Structures are given as structure tokens and as C-alpha cells.
């Protein structure tokens, strides 16, 4: 079953949860063949009931110790701009659509999502353009995200500190 996983991290992002479960957005998702929607809603006030969207299988929860499994099972991850969620999804090799919370100004976390978007590693939109983005997006333009190389750091430090 083609699955979309939506994550808002440790904060709340009711607007995203509201947008993604709206009839037009659900229709855009089903038109693309997505049949299952898993929502991690964090501290938000909105926890949609399983039967609230008749056209998709819907699950919602606030927090889990690890969302790695949900990411693994997803075909598309829709995330807030948090660095942790972005890196975890990209690290798992998933297609990622970041929805920016434009009510949060000067959030430095946006910096990284924006840069990763410029480097074509993820798609980027706001709640108001979410439905349109889901209708028109082309996931094939996304470039694979190669993991960082801590070994380079270790080699540098070994040499600098004289560690054998």
C-alpha cells in the first residue's frame, strides 16, 4: 500500500495536519496512488480520527520513541522543516516534501531545508500551496542525498593531533 508519512517533530503544526487531511489534499494524494496516511502530530491540538477520511487508511499519533520505522515504510515523507526530520528522511533515501511553517519567522532551521531544496534534495512548499504541490510535483527531479562523511573528520583530527 503506497504510504505517506507526515511528521511535525517535537513541536506542533496544526495547520499542516489540517491541510493534509482536507478533502482536496486527500483527493490529490489518492490521484497519485497513495492509499495510506500516517500522521505524527506532536503537541498539536488536532489528532484526526481513523475514520475521518473515507478515501484513505488513516493513522495518527502524537509521539513515538523512534519514527524510523514509519519513515522506512513510507513512499513519501511530508515533514516540517526541522533539521532532524529532514536528515532522517533523506538519510533513509525517501522522497521528501518539506512544508514550511510561515508563521514561524526567523527560524534558523529553515536555513537547512532551504539549502537542501536549492541542492534538489527535497521539495519545498507552504500549507497554502500543499495541495497544488502534491498535484504537480515531480519526484524524479530529486537528487540522492549522500550521507555525511565523519571519517574525513576523524582523519583530519588524527593528523592534527598526531594520533597513530
Amino acid at each position: 500500500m503506497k504510504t505517506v508519512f507526515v511528521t511535525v517533530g517535537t513541536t506542533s503544526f496544526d495547520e499542516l495536519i489540517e491541510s493534509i487531511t482536507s478533502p482536496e489534499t486527500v483527493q490529490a494524494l489518492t490521484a497519485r496512488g497513495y492509499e495510506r496516511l500516517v500522521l505524527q502530530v506532536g503537541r498539536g491540538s488536532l489528532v484526526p480520527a481513523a475514520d475521518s477520511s473515507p478515501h484513505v487508511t488513516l493513522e495518527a499519533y502524537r509521539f513515538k520513541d523512534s519514527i524510523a520505522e514509519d519513515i522506512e515504510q513510507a513512499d513519501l515523507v511530508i515533514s516540517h522543516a526541522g533539521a532532524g526530520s529532514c536528515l532522517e528522511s533523506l538519510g533513509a533515501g525517501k522522497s521528501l516534501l518539506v512544508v514550511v511553517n510561515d508563521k514561524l519567522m526567523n527560524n534558523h532551521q529553515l536555513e537547512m531545508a532551504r539549502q537542501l531544496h536549492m541542492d534538489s534534495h527535497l521539495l519545498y512548499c507552504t500549507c497554502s500551496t500543499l495541495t497544488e504541490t502534491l498535484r504537480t510535483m515531480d519526484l524524479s527531479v530529486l537528487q540522492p542525498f549522500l550521507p555525511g562523511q565523519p571519517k574525513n573528520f576523524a582523519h583530519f583530527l588524527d593528523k592534527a593531533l598526531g594520533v597513530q
Partner: protein
Amino acid sequence: MCFGHFWSSGAAVAVMAFLEGAVYAAGFICLLFIIRLYYIVKTGSSYKPGAKGPVAVLVVAGSGGHTTEILRLMESLSAGYTPRHYVIADTDRMSEEKICSFESSKQNSDSESQFSICRIPRSREVLQSWSSSVLSTLHALRFSLPLVFRLRPDVVLCNGPGTCVPLCVAALLLGILGMKKVLIVYVESICRVQTLSLTGKILYPISDYFFVQWSSLRDKYPKSIFLGRIV
């Protein structure tokens, strides 16, 4: 009464002389301090603690993402970095678990794995105001100084939580006082693309190795080291 007046003006002269002396002494100590500070920061890159044997590391784990990043870095370091002392903020529960599971997985690969976890008060909660941050950082310094003086690490490795500032200041003080040169290795979090974090800005002038993970930051901060993404 006349005598009393004479006594008090004599005392006043003595007090003035003492104060003057104290000011000169304080100025002299400050000057020595600055010269030492300059010397310590300048000579850091030629200091090679690894040549003498294992390198003791003080690792500042922050919370959440910071801990994940720093453990990625620790994962890549060889057994030559022993022992490893992790410092976490006392309000942080998640990090301790992550560190323990990381260290126990490392234990399989090298037999003499040694680590400890120390707690200090958090110097800055997210979104805390500037002025109260200064106070709580001073409070954290009271705990950082004895900790760093006791552990005497060769290297302090940190990547951005506010907790690193008092620890790096303590490490620097160890060097200024001539007790032990402690290298400060700072890795700016991968989240910072265009601007340094507040901690990064504070530690940029005093760290011995300052890593950034995006080329845009390297261009702005010439002293920084850029090896691509390293976490």
C-alpha cells in the same frame, strides 16, 4: 578630635595608595592573562597530544539533534581517543540513553572502552532571554570549572549546545594558568548553513579547530575548516 581627623586622613591616604596598587596589580594580571590567552590560542594547532599516547576527550552532548550529530562524529574516532567523558545538561534524559547504547555498541569493537557521563546545569534553554542566559551560563561555569580541572582532558569536542561555552572557558583557563593545554574542537551543527549559531560565534575566536559543514560558512569565516558534510 584633632587627632581623630589626622588619623582618618592618614588612613584615607593609605587606602588610596592601596587602591592604586590594587588597580595596577589587577591591570598587570589582566595584561598577563591576555598575553597568555593569545599565546594559548595561537599555539593550539601545533600541539599534538596524540603523539604521547591515548587522547582523553571531553565530549559535550547537547540535546536531541546535537547529541545525534556528536555521536556520529564519535563513531568515526579510533580507540586512540580514550577515555571519553560525556557532559550532558541535567535536564536532558534522552542523551544519556543514546550515549550508553552508542558506547555499548562500541565496546564490542574495542575491548578497553572507557567512558563516563557527567551532568552540569543547562546554561541556556531554547528561547531563553539573553540576560538570563548570561546568569545561567555563569552558574554553569561554577560546575564546569571543577569538572574540567578534575578530568584534565586533552581535547574538548563540541557542536553547538550552549553548555559548551562554560566548558570551553574552563578548558581555556586550564591553559592560561599553565596547568594543561586543552584543545578546543568545535563542529558547527549541520543545521547552520548561512549563519553561525550563537555558541559558534562565541567559540570561533578561541577554538583551535573550528569545523563548518557548508561552503557558504567557510567563505564567511576564513579560520574555519570545511571538509564537506561530516555528520
